């Protein structure tokens, strides 16, 4: 058996896990690992801030379905990663973070760059390890990958003291079965539950299907489509469910919740049955729990038992992998029509269409919604969009019609500004042929714009649309609606993004008029390298509809219609 150092063992394990790219930043406590890296066929992407490394690993994971890997040094390197780790945790994204730690002999002594990283990351990882013996390292890394991707995925961190990286031992990649998770969701759903679910579904007159990120994680897109088409039940999406059900399908209601389509929210509130697939009744989706879908029975198909009846009482939980459950459930339900219900929703939908700003002749300024719509048109709906957090994120979700899974990557659960650019870099490594676009606000973009240098150094092609409204727009909107237009700390000065890009030797354009939007997008797509477009949009526009936090889901603030 070969003798290897801990540092070599890390790379040996990564190679065996099929890793070909890692995102990281070196430092004293991780130096042995960086030294060993040069002898292994793994590409290392040097980030500009460790938060970026975690987001890149996350973007890579979401775009590929594989585990993303981020590396950082001890202390500040590791703490910088925490925002990215929490982002992955809240969105169930499988990443493995490897951090250097001070030597075992000085752990606990406040040594230089010592932080209790397993302590800090305990609540934001699915699991973490502090490996104090080199003999345990291979097993820890193998378990880390397994845990990250199994069941409900999530981030796992492995903290490796410097002396453990230097220590040697015999290297064997363990191949025994990993006992986690110890308690498994049974593959076979109890027949009685399936019968009952089928009965409820067949009897329902106003049912709605709710789909979330779990559809994508389970790979159950076809099964959900088949189920919906057979039963003719309309489908509402969570933010992370976007792309798992084709946006232009007759049954698709688009996004629900705080900034969901009014007709989707009305359908949920008026439903007599909700059939939830791989979603978790987040507060952004439900609004006031006391009045949420009051007349509906709830069936919840979910792999994570701790999500059952967490926020919303569920009448019939079905634990399991969605794909497997639907393969058992769909044959048992009757083909349905539900004409009256679908007609009712169509009526609501027409009422919404009348308010659609894309149709409003009276607006000739450049709106963010225009930019998104035109981006959709110019990319033929085929781009992989990575959006940041704020108003532009909601407009993207509303106006870019995603037909395919993994075509929208966004920070949903944590709402992490600064996510988009680094996550897009990771996504581009996962899908090198994809037409990747960052859609970011002027505020969030500035949080991680340093990764422009990473983009350039890696010679990647992706395009960046900055939706520049001069404000931390989403917060400004809350101030407008709920704080009497007192704009505390939301007007934001930005650098000249064209000049900024120029400093990184990245071509850039500024667009201020609607007619220039599509030509700019086309020009950007034709350039071989990255391009930044600074879209100067209307400053005080708001995202509609809006359900104020904690309000009833049907109590939406609608876009005012102009009086003739």
């Amino acid at each position: 058996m070969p003798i290897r150092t801990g540092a070599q063992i890390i790379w040996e394990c990564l190679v065996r896990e099929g890793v070909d790219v890692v995102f990281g930043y070196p430092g004293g406590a991780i130096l042995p690992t960086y030294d060993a890296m040069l002898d292994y066929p793994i590409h290392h992407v040097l980030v500009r801030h460790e938060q970026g490394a975690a987001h890149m690993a996350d973007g890579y994971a979401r775009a590929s379905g594989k585990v993303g890997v981020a590396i950082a040094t001890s202390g500040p390197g590791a703490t910088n990663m925490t925002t990215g780790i929490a982002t992955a945790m809240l969105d169930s994204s499988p990443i493995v973070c490897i951090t250097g730690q001070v030597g075992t002999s000085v752990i606990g002594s406040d040594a230089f760059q010592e932080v209790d990283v397993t302590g800090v990351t305990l609540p934001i990882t699915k699991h973490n390890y502090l490996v104090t013996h080199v003999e345990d390292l291979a097993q820890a890394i193998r378990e880390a990958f397994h845990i990250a991707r199994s069941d409900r995925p999530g981030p796992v961190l492995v903290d490796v003291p410097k002396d453990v990286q230097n220590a040697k031992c015999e290297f064997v990649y363990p191949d025994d079965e990993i006992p986690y998770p110890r308690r498994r969701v049974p593959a076979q759903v109890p027949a009685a539950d399936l019968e009952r679910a089928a009965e409820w579904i067949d009897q329902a007159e106003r049912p709605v299907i709710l789909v979330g990120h779990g559809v994508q994680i389970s790979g159950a897109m076809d099964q959900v489509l088949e189920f919906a088409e057979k039963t003719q039940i309309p489908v509402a999406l969570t933010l992370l469910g976007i792309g798992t059900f084709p946006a232009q399908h007759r049954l698709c209601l688009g996004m629900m919740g705080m900034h969901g389509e009014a007709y989707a929210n009305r359908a949920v509130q008026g439903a007599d049955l909700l059939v939830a697939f791989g979603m978790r009744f987040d507060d952004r989706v439900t609004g006031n729990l006391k009045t949420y879908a009051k007349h509906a029975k709830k069936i919840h198909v979910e792999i994570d038992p701790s999500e059952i009846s967490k926020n919303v009482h569920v009448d019939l939980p079905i634990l399991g992998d969605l794909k497997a459950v639907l393969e058992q459930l769909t044959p048992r339900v009757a083909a349905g029509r539900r004409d009256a219900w679908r007609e009712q929703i169509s009526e609501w939908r027409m009422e919404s269409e009348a308010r659609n700003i894309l149709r409003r002749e009276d607006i000739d300024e450049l709106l963010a919604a225009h930019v998104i719509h035109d981006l959709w048109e110019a990319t033929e709906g085929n781009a992989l969009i990575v959006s940041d957090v704020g108003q532009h994120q909601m407009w993207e979700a509303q106006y870019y019609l995603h037909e395919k899974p993994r075509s929208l990557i966004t920070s949903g659960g944590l709402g992490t500004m600064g996510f988009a650019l680094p996550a897009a870099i990771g996504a581009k490594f996962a899908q090198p042929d994809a037409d990747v676009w960052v859609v970011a606000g002027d505020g969030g973009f500035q949080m991680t714009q340093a990764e422009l240098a990473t983009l350039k150094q890696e010679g990647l092609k992706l395009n960046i649309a900055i939706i520049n409204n001069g404000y931390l727009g989403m917060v400004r909107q809350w101030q407008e609606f709920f704080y009497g237009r007192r704009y505390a700390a939301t007007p934001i000065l930005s650098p000249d993004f064209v000049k900024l890009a120029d400093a990184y030797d990245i071509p850039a354009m500024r667009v201020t008029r609607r007619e220039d939007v599509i030509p700019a997008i086309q020009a950007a797509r034709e350039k071989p390298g990255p391009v930044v477009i600074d879209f100067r949009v209307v400053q005080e526009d708001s995202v509609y509809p809006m359900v104020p936090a904690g309000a009833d889901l049907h109590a939406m603030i609608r876009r005012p219609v102009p009086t003739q």
Partner: protein
Amino acid sequence: MKHTLVALVEDKPGVLNRVASLFRRRAFNIESLTVGRTHEPAVSRMTILVDTEQTAPALVEANLSKLINVIDVKDVTHLPTVMRDLALVKVRADASALAELNQLANIFRANIVDVSPDSVIIEVTGDEAKIDGLLDVLRSRGIIEMVRTGQVAMARGAVNGHDVPAANSWATPRGNGNGHLAESVGSV
């Protein structure tokens, strides 16, 4: 009402921390938590009393089961179970009170385990009600200090509560938690 959960966990550093962190993070209302060794060297055992007024025991069980170091969790509330708590109570007592205290201890099957010139330590083991009963009687005599271990639980009979079939797969939970997070979150 209270529910009693028994968890077997790996005896590794930081496991108690993970469990405690989980309870705090999820705002679970826990009455008591005891940890101790088992007959298996690598396994510790926790007895957890959940206040069901505010916390759904099924959610506690589900969340505990997700922790990698948790081997198994079982809600033993509805099983015939032996529950024990141990208390040490130091009360004021001079030599003249000793005989009477001894009698009192006997009634509760408690023992006087230490005698000093003006105090004694009484040790009592039993279920919660019995210990509460003794404490009520002793309170009037002046308790100097007191410590309780918290309850430990074990199901009666030859079963090992954790070996019963299906202990390692999920039974369909019948949701009884309707939102311990009942307040909506108002942040951007």
